[in-house]
């Protein structure tokens, strides 16, 4: 969950303007869904931060995290420092944590511990940047199974999960009071509201001009499409690509029907820049987004409700991507003993997990914390359910070949390209790239 530079800039620009292009949207934690996220810090002009590469500070334990998580990490780090009589430094890396970490770690001046999304694991492992954790199964029984599954890669646990996120369906209760049982029902209600002139958009499912495979996943899975099959060990199998297979073509046809040449529910003009802002200003009946949209929507004071994204009538249930956030141990950290101790023991407590939730507000992956938080906050409860009901985002390196082409195929189909040929050609192109 990182604010994209695009959004930051729009936020900054929004003060200069009074246009409908508001700010406040964010990219999902899918590092790969933002194509530039995979670019290394040394890419020419690819890193908009323009700042020099971060350098580790000198302490007995150095933790790298981003602005959002820092308030949660700091109290745990302070306690760990006091308990062991050492110095712990939490450094906030403002941009491109993954690329900066990989570069710094390879040069031997990276952190000992860092936070990150689970879909980084494939890339981090192929770069030899992280060390596996040896946490017994009994010590992981308190977490949602999907969180442990997502952070386990090739039968090794690489991160201790603390939170997970998946997209759900927000509804504007002024025009859509009841929880829809199917996506068709939601669309019908939304379209009626558009006809009555109450809203401008029936359903905000952000795609933009270049598409967004992350937000389209519930539609894809409900129509029987999938991205990767599974190996016997439970990992995603890069050899079994679902793009271009019958399920994905059924999804493509559905997207075409809902697109600009069909019922115009899906439009390329609804993008990460305006999707949440339009909903929060009451201009949309439904919104497909994650927990990161909550602050903006709450701030607007509108009446809303959340439920997991339902499937289409008579089709399979919709399964969004679950993105799990966790703590990693760097492979070349200077203080590996403290790093292992911190992640395996200090972090793996209810108090630490509660601190992470209080600081970062990401739906907790530890069941006991989730139950406690969910009791006070029904929104979080829904998001925990949505994350549990999703599929872990693929962490295999092959996934990096999927995000962009698949997104572009979605946006082309919304714009009226032939669904069958587009999806088939995209599947072929991705398969060729994976090799």
């Amino acid at each position, binding site marked *: 969950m990182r604010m994209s530079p695009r959004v930051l800039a*729009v936020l900054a620009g929004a003060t200069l303007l009074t246009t409908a292009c508001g700010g406040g949207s964010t990219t999902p934690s899918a590092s790969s869904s933002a194509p530039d996220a995979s670019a290394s810090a040394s890419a020419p002009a690819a890193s908009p931060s323009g700042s020099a590469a971060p350098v580790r500070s000198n302490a007995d334990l150095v933790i790298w995290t981003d602005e959002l998580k820092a308030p949660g990490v700091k109290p745990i780090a302070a306690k760990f420092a006091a308990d062991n*009589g050492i110095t712990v430094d939490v450094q906030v890396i403002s941009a491109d944590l993954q690329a900066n970490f990989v570069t710094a770690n390879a040069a031997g001046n990276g952190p000992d511990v860092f936070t990150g999304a689970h879909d980084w694991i494939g890339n981090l492992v192929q770069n030899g940047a992280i060390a596996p954790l040896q946490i017994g199964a009994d010590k992981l029984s308190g977490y949602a199974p999907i969180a442990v599954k997502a952070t386990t890669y090739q039968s090794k646990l690489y991160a201790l999960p603390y939170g997970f996120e998946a997209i759900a369906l927000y509804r504007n209760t002024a025009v859509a009071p009841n929880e829809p049982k199917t996506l068709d029902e939601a669309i019908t209600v939304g379209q009626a509201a558009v006809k009555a002139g109450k809203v401008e958009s029936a359903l905000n499912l952000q795609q933009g001009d*270049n598409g967004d495979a992350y937000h389209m996943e519930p539609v894809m899975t409900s129509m029987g499409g999938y991205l990767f099959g599974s190996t016997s060990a439970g990992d995603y199998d890069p050899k079994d690509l679902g793009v271009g297979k019958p399920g994905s073509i059924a999804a493509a046809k559905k997207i075409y029907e809902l697109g600009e040449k069909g019922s115009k529910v899906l439009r*390329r003009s609804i993008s990460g820049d305006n999707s949440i802002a339009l909903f929060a200003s009451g201009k949309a009946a439904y919104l497909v987004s994650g927990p990161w949209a909550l602050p903006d929507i709450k701030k607007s004071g509108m009446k809303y409700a959340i439920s997991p994204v339902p499937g289409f009538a008579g089709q399979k249930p919709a399964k969004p991507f679950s993105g799990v956030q966790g703590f990693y141990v760097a492979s070349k950290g200077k203080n590996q003993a403290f790093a*292992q101790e911190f992640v395996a023991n200090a972090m793996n407590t209810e108090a630490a997990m509660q601190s992470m939730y209080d600081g970062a507000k990401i739906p907790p992956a530890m069941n006991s914390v989730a139950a406690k938080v969910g009791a006070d906050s029904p929104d979080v409860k829904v998001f925990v359910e949505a994350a549990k009901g999703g599929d872990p985002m693929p962490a295999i390196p092959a996934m*990096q070949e999927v995000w*962009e082409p698949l997104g572009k195929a979605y946006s082309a189909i919304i714009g009226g390209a032939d669904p069958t040929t587009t999806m088939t050609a995209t599947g072929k192109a991705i398969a060729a790239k994976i090799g």
Partner: protein
Amino acid sequence: MVATTTPTRPTPAEPDQHRPANRPAGTTTAVLAKVIGLGLVLGLAGTITPTLLGQERWAFLAIVWIIAALALFAYLGKGRLPAKYILPGTLLLFLFVVYPVVMTAKASTTNFGDGTRQSKPETITQIIASSVTQTPDAPRYTMTVATQASVTDGPFTLFLVNQKDNSISRGTSEGLDTVAAGDVTVTDNAVTSAPGYTILTPQQVNAANAKIKEIAVPTEKGAIRPLGIRQAFEGITTLKYDEATDTITDTQTGVTYTPVTSGDREYFTSADGKRVSDQSWLATVGADNYQRALTDSRIRADFIRIFIWTVAFATLSVGTCFLLGLVLATVLNDDRLKGQRIYRSVLLLPYAIPGFISLLVWSGFFNKDFGLINSLTGLDIGWFTSVGWARTAVIVTNLWMGFPYMFLVCTGALQAIPADLKEAAAIDGASGFTQFRKITFPLLLVTVAPLLVSSFAFNFNNFNAVQLLTEGAPFAPDNPTAGGTDILISYTIRLAFGAGGAQLGFASAISVLLFVLTGVIAAIQFRATRTLEDVN
């Protein structure tokens, strides 16, 4: 780092002929500046020497000291005036232009990128180390590290308290033996003191981690290994590397993995095509990256189209910005106009707003259903969905961002043109427009033409203008790599980083090719601008 000194012998290069020839070099300030400057250079060189020695970066070390020696030679000696002026610039040119170009060229002959960041030995070590698997149902131990010798070098002994039955044992790499409960002090299920042993503090354990990590206490099922500072677990290393045959063997399944080439890298692969790990290693691939860039059918198909658009984009950007800037500058240069300053300040605003912000804001303006442009004009144009409109949008936005620069440059150039030339032309009966065409514009071009060339080169590689506005859109449904507004730089960055992780070696090769291309174009343009100098 510039110290002024006066050579004792007046030379033609020296404008100041009024100083006595035997005066000692420099004033107090100059001497002080020289001492501080040279002291800094030497100090810096001395400071980084141990680090470079430690990392065995000999070439770097030599360069650092050569630079220091050059500085001493140039600024301490008498005379050598040209060197004093040329040295700083030359060094900076070398450090920030030549060196990166050389390093990029060097990187372009490797397969460096995601998955190939490390050497082969390092990769093998990591693959073996991360194959440690916990023995199922084996107990965990609360570990205390102790030594009878040095706390930094060991040899170390692990005192282990079984977390299941609280039995105490002592382990070294030789083996495990049981310890009677009375022989050691146990507090909170951890051994806190043992006669004849020094117990290590957490910091000492952490500091000696490299040595302690190596301890594997052999057991029936595997070995007990330290984990962190207080724990030990029983596990087994499932992979073994054999140097003689260059193979990795899985001791559990008996499968052997040998290096097999796939694309530009090698993986340890089994006979039935399974990889032991996604990790490959850094290797030199010669000219393969260049070959791929020049012969890849997909790249070739798109390259020509994108190259033409890149040239058109750079030409149109410079042309439109220059025209608008020139018109505004000429209009505002008239003394009869009131409020010149206010107008000029307002016109500079687009230039004052950071490009990142204005590009992203403009990208919102062009939104088809919710954007400012369509809602103000009542149009319903899908700005980024058709190639023509998207290109128009990119040019318009770039015009808005670029004209203030041209306006500034032209204003300066216009004010430098002597008024008497115009008066002479007016006396000869030239009208205002003829004056502009025959006198003002040619004189202006002499000053501005080189800037137009550099502006062209800048726009030729103006990554932000495309990436932040359209991200290359629109894309044909069957081609997700080359978009309608992509220019060479955004296209190649997508090729190198867009998918499949960072391919830094390949990207470097592309950079070198772009560098050559841009250089050639700029050289041609500079030749062309030379003819303008005949005006004077």
